[in-house]
């Protein structure tokens, strides 16, 4: 009976309209994207970069090829040469960003924290060639990222793997990896 009365008095519709009316006076939640930017959380898996070692100015990659092995989409290609002692020297690090599925396995498995998925997400382009990152391009990506980064020390969640038992981490990652950006910034 009560429901019938409500039905006649349009209470169901008016109740809904009241909710929409209340929302009219609330703060809008829409982000006006090109003018405002969305908040990006730390360790967002965005554009790839090779970390530029502040001391040598080159990448930290030791050509262990772990990233090549774990990559589910097989988008990484590493070429290197070996000297007589068996020490490896990186020749080129190619990464096909269009094949990448951004799982973050490469940065998680990297023992020295060389490859990283930066928090840079605006990198659309009109030609495919610009997504074939080689070593120079990846280092350049890092420089571009550092320019916009405000803190002086960069670290990534996938570098220190909080909560994961020590035995499951690569040896160097147990110490924790950080990059001092001050040197790079001073150099310009």
């Amino acid at each position, binding site marked *: 009976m009560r429901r019938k009365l409500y039905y006649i008095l349009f209470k169901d519709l008016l109740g809904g309209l009241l909710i929409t009316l209340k929302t009219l006076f609330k703060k809008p939640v829409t982000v006006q994207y090109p003018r405002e930017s969305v908040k990006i959380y730390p360790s967002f898996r965005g554009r790839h970069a090779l970390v530029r070692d502040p001391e040598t100015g080159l990448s930290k990659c030791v050509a262990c090829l772990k990233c090549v092995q774990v990559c589910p989409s097989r988008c990484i290609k590493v070429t290197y040469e070996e000297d007589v002692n068996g020490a490896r020297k990186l020749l080129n690090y190619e990464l096909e960003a269009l094949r990448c599925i951004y799982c973050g396995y490469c940065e998680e498995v990297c023992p020295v924290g060389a490859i990283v998925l930066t928090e840079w997400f605006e990198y659309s382009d009109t030609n495919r060639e610009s997504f074939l990152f080689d070593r120079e391009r990846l280092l350049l990506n890092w420089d571009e990222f550092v320019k916009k980064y405000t803190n002086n020390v960069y670290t990534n*969640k996938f570098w220190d793997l909080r*909560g994961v038992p020590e035995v499951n981490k690569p040896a160097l990652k147990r110490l924790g990896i950080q990059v001092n950006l001050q040197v790079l910034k001073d150099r310009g």
Partner: protein
Amino acid sequence: MLEKSSITKDQIFSTEDPFFSPFVIQMGPQHPSTHGVLKLNLVLEGERIVDCEPIIGFLHRGLEKLAENLTYTQVLPLTDRLDYISAMNNNTGYALVVERILGIEPPPRGKYLRTMVCELARIASHLLWLATHALDIGAMTVFLYCFRERERILDFFEDICGARLTVSYPKIGGVRLDVEERTLEEIYNFIPVMERRIEEYEGLLSDNRIWLDRTVGVGVISANEALAYGLTGPSLRGSGVPYDVRKHFPYDAYGEVDFEVPVGTRGDTYDRYWCRLQEMRQSLKIIKQCIERLPEGPVCAELSPDLDMPSFKRAFRAEAWGESSFIAFLNESVELIPKGELYSAVEGAKGELGFYLVSDGSGRPYRLHIRTPSFVHISAIPKLAKGHFLADLITIIGTLDIVMGECDR
């Protein structure tokens, strides 16, 4: 007065009708309300559906076959692409089956975190379902409101693991990273907000006469028929069968948390809507308990396989590096994990999501079959749609909560 009589096929036409001429139209695969690339071949008599045949396979990516060429850890990001709306559940389902075949157990903190993110994903999935379902029927406002809250949940995922949809957060033997205290606090504060929001959706829809006209008595399926068609999840619970994998075969921390399984009575679109809204409330309850009882400790088991399984040192031959050797070393007849086969299921957002894994002892699955709820639910569309108006077909597709990425895989 609010009840709408359901019309049977026999009432609308009889085969003796001399004037009956079927009208065949093809709906989809590029139709906005088929929720992906679903095609329906419809036989119409006027506005009424006489017959309906779903055509699937437009989004087939060969995911099961692809899994046979990848290591166990590499398959995990693929499962994100099944039901891309609640990727956490897929990852957990896959991680569980490998864990069970390996015989490892995640630590309690890993279990609780996995349960928490699974429930968040379930809410996100139900929100997207409610948004699109309401939009199909004609309620635009609900669509916008639901996406507002879904954005919050995706932000939590971004904060936790760095990705919004293709998360790959749960892993074999636990989760990949610990969640920060700050994030847990934010999620905890979000729970009362979300409870109020669900009340808002209910205020907009539950008593609304247009919503009732469009949903009550549409797409009725009885409990026995639903079981016969293999429906699971909220689609089955709407018909009154209280089957829930989380309750009947508890995995992760579901055995330790307290929650209820909402069931409908009539098995129509409205009851399935009601079930899903109640389920969101129960999910919030589970998340609350998970955060309150979150144990300390590591988040993944020490025995969990490394990302670069099989063992790097054993198999790697530097001089013969290349794509071919990558495949070759996986073929080595060394038993890395126990041989055997196993089916294990989780309660995905859409229904029972099962993984059937056959292991031959090598580093990659011999066979991975995925039992996806959407695939099964699509087979029930003809049963639900027969005798209804063409406009109600949109409601029926919406109410089953279909994701074509999961169906075609």
